[in-house]
């Protein structure tokens, strides 16, 4: 006898410990099976695009820290400064570009560590959370010595960076990298062979290569589906064209593949930091740019590879002291849209594993 079933609507969030922010998921269930997932976003909408229209180019640097993705503040500053520099034709000194690369990669490691730790907690692995935050704390200390901030730095400036590296910092950073690489192997040992972890991630939440491209996924989510794309290789900015690194790609497209990609990315970031520190040239760190600068009329779209994917800024200037229109192309926004496809057909218990695996930050989704 066939059992008569009914569809059930389940609300997850907006205040839910596993949504990593204020995200509401409207899950349509048939028994335990997910039929459809509709993310409902906008709870953290800070209208940073509108605010940027009312502040000068110089002031906007501090807004990008908190208005966009707060876990990768330096990479947000990077994309904004790059956009203004390209629009106004400002040259950045060599030393500043190297410093930016070091800081970007440290930020990427810090962001991936938060992701790995919180995702581990979602899947029931508490140790990995504590270990990740232990290493992240060291990165925060490194940041604090250079920028003065731990999360919100306001360190990059249009035309360079605010202050030079303190004495002995490069060696300290080098020591951290040496310390950090064996730690990645530890995470690997802790999780990769763990049967519980494997059962919850391998083959779960698959998105095909075709869907990933069509839905606009980027970054580790796309690379886990076999799309070998990295803006750092494709359109190198700063000095990434001089760095030797590999772009990790997996073809399975499941949660486990996304985990493998990010783990390998941390190793590659450490590799880039080493090279950049070795190549760090002496000299100026900042071009003189008037504080009340005006950008010439025009528009520019700049893409960078942030920890979450393809982070872009579309900047329109009408020749005034403030931007005329800023459009932030947030990687989490498109990746979260791809979630609707990933979730179909899985069990309700997989929701958290899949949601955690795409690594969204809600202030990036809502801006």
């Amino acid at each position: 006898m066939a059992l008569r079933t009914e569809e059930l609507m389940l609300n997850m969030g907006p205040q839910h410990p596993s949504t990593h922010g204020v995200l509401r998921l409207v899950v349509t269930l048939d028994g335990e099976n997910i039929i459809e997932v509709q993310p409902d976003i906008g709870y953290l909408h800070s209208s940073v695009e509108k605010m940027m229209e009312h502040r000068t180019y110089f002031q906007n640097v501090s807004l990008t820290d908190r208005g966009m993705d707060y876990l990768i503040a330096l990479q947000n500053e990077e994309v904004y400064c790059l956009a203004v520099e390209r629009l106004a034709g400002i040259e950045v000194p060599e030393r500043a570009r190297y410093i930016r690369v070091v800081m970007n990669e440290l930020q990427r490691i810090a962001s991936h560590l938060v992701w790995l730790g919180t995702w581990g907690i979602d899947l029931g692995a508490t140790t990995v959370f504590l270990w990740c935050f232990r290493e992240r704390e060291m990165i925060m200390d490194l940041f604090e010595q250079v920028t003065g901030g731990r999360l919100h730095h306001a360190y990059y400036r249009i035309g360079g960076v605010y202050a030079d590296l303190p004495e002995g910092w490069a060696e300290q950073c080098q020591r951290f990298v040496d310390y950090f690489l064996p730690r990645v192997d530890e995470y690997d040992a802790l999780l990769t062979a763990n049967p519980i972890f494997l059962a919850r991630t391998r083959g779960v939440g698959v998105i095909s290569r075709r869907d990933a491209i069509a839905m606009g996924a980027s970054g580790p989510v796309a690379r886990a589906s076999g799309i070998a794309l990295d803006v750092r290789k494709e359109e190198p900015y700063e000095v990434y064209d001089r760095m030797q690194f590999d772009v990790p790609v997996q073809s399975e497209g499941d949660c486990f593949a996304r985990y493998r990609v990010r783990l390998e990315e941390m190793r590659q970031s450490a590799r880039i930091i080493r090279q950049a520190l070795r190549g760090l040239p002496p000299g100026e760190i900042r071009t003189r740019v008037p504080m009340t600068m005006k950008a010439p009329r025009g528009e520019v779209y700049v893409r960078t590879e942030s920890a979450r994917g393809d982070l872009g800024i579309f900047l329109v200037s009408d020749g005034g002291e403030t931007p005329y229109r800023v459009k932030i192309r947030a990687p989490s926004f498109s990746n979260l849209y791809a979630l609707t496809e990933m979730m179909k057909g899985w069990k309700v218990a997989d929701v958290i594993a899949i949601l955690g695996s795409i690594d969204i930050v809600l202030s990036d989704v809502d801006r």
Partner: protein
Amino acid sequence: MSPERIAQFLERFPRVRDLAAEQRAEQAREDEEWAAKQREWQEAVERAKAEGKPAPRPLKREESRVYHYHGPTFGVEREELLDVCRWLRDNPEFDMSYLSFVSAIDWRDRFEVVYHLRSPARRHSVVLKVPVPRDDPRVPSVTGLWRGAEWHEREAYDLLGIVFEGHPDLRRILMSADWKGHPLRKDYVYEDPQWLVEVASQRQREIAATGEDWEGRGSRS
């Protein structure tokens, strides 16, 4: 994108405007005008020298009015948009399988809907700009070509009020469903939403009833 590809694209769609080329032409015209002015000034200086008069003031170049595009940018009519997009996506020479974002600019007299397309395989990108009148901001939706456009179009609708025809589910995405107006428009004036007015007046009534300080409990120490 290589010049040959751009030529091929323009040949297929003669009505498409190559904005980057127009910008280069405009820049050249401005440079020429400036050069002519400088020549004139040089002559005036020499004439003044010969006549023993004080030299005329040096010239100052006006701020350029040219609008700069960085990278290939094309102006497309909205009637033609879907054909152009489909051709760009399906033609293996272009292979624009990735839509970076859809957004719009409010130019006070008109809107411009912006599409940024990219080809991961061929590693090139293109910006399409579709001018739409302010009193009739409609464009066809490209969700049929790129699924990822769905949320981007909803966002453009929410913040700028562009109506995407043929969109499967066009409703607000970032603002609450009962929000009035489109915040990123240049003529938008913020108004407190009704629920907020009610909450605030309720709180004011409470304060009036208890005589409590606005700043809450505790004193400055």
